[in-house]
């Protein structure tokens, strides 16, 4: 699960570290720390936005730990499926039952179709679509793409995937 938090803390040495420590104790992985000093730097308050990847069920624990250290949490955003990948589909997308195609992805439980933009030029011509998939992990994303390719092959729909560079 991806979590983003907006925190308000005293602008004193050691404050930021004291917040980051419980994150790793809860098994979290910090993705980004966005550090914005207040325009009015005399206020003595530091606004920090943290984006982290956290195992399911650990959020309440983490929130308690952070509060205990005298830091105010002003906002929490949760996103279970935060990996996104957009692919293109070309073929008779409507006539091969697009809602079935979307359903097959959604039914997996680990992937969702987040967006679908469809362009249909004329009734007998091939249509084109951009489909955006969301998953929690890279492995799930690969499984979802494989499933979409399989479903599309049966329906004679061409899938254009993004070029994923090797690391």
């Amino acid at each position, binding site marked *: 699960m991806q979590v983003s938090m907006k925190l308000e803390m005293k602008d004193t040495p050691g404050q930021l570290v004291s917040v980051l420590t419980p994150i790793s104790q809860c098994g979290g992985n910090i993705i980004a720390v966005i550090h914005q000093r207040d325009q009015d730097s005399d206020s003595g308050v530091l606004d920090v936005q943290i984006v982290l990847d956290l195992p399911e069920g650990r959020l309440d624990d983490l929130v308690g730990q952070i509060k205990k250290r005298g830091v105010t949490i002003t906002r929490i955003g949760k996103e279970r499926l935060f990996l996104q990948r*957009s692919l293109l589909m070309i*073929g008779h997308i409507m006539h091969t039952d697009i809602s079935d195609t979307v359903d097959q992805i959604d039914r997996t439980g680990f992937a969702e179709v987040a967006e679908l933009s469809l362009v249909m*030029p004329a009734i007998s011509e091939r*249509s*084109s679509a*951009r489909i955006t998939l969301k998953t929690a992990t890279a492995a799930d994303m690969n499984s979802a793409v494989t499933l979409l390719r399989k479903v599309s092959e049966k329906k004679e729909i*061409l899938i*254009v995937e*993004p*070029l994923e560079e090797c690391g």
Partner: protein
Amino acid sequence: MRIAILGFGSVGRGVAQVVQEKDLGITVTGLADSRSGIMDPDGIDLQAALDRKAKTGFCGDRSTAPLDVVDGAEYDALVEVSPTRIEDGEPAITHIVHALSRGKHAVTSNKGPIALAHRRLHTLAASHGAQLRYEATVCGAIPVLHVLQHDLLGNQVKALHGVMNGTCNFILTRMEDEGLTYDQALAEAREMGYAEADPSYDVKGIDAALKLVILANTIWDLGVTLDDVEITGIDLITPDAIRLACERETTIRLIAEAIPEKGLLRVSPRIIPHGHPLLVEGTLNAVTLHTDLAGELTFIGKGAGSVETASAVIGDLLYIGEHHAGAH
């Protein structure tokens, strides 16, 4: 260095032109197209041969067969630049086998022999102390094979990605820039001389796949063939799909991809972001090598053209002249 040029189409004429114009120490002692041949140990008058070809369609004497030139002419290196025949690689394979068996070096731009008979030809060359070089088979003027075989010594190449077919890249570029349909862009490519009357070899991804096979066998000695490559062409791409990609600051290009540790050999249209190093325009080619020491290296250049392809052939010849001179 004395050479025999087999094939007097675009590439062969390009080689002749460069040899004529630049003082490279190269003399052409044998020359043949598919139906005629000419030999002269003192050097063939190339301008006369070019004029004859333009006027009559024959570069030499119709009673001299191409194989007569391969077997009879006095040369150090055979330049096999006849068109690729993917069904069997002939007659180029026979030409190269005969030259190597005579202990002569061979340089080729013909993908057929290298994609179909790389190991056999390589072994034959080694057993006769001859060199076999084929820079011009992959990405035209880009010296990617030379870089791989010489400049990246000590590196392990983990993967490669490339835009390896100028015809497809031209079509996709025009579809993106002008909103043309695939058929319109193909017609334009034909008018410009970038596409053959039967464009399927290019647009179905076969040409790019052959280059991928050649690279994979050269880098990793995988012994793969065209059948091992998963191939999807660009002939079903719609301008709508490209527009949908552009809305996200991406576009579509035909990408050839090899990642041996995943067992992946694939040629397919792919979404790539604007500003990506492989996103080249028009008929250009580009190739990215992912290496363990040097990191990522991307080369961009002309993938076809008479003099551009001749550049790769000449480079191979001069390399042999410098490193394996006077062998035979």
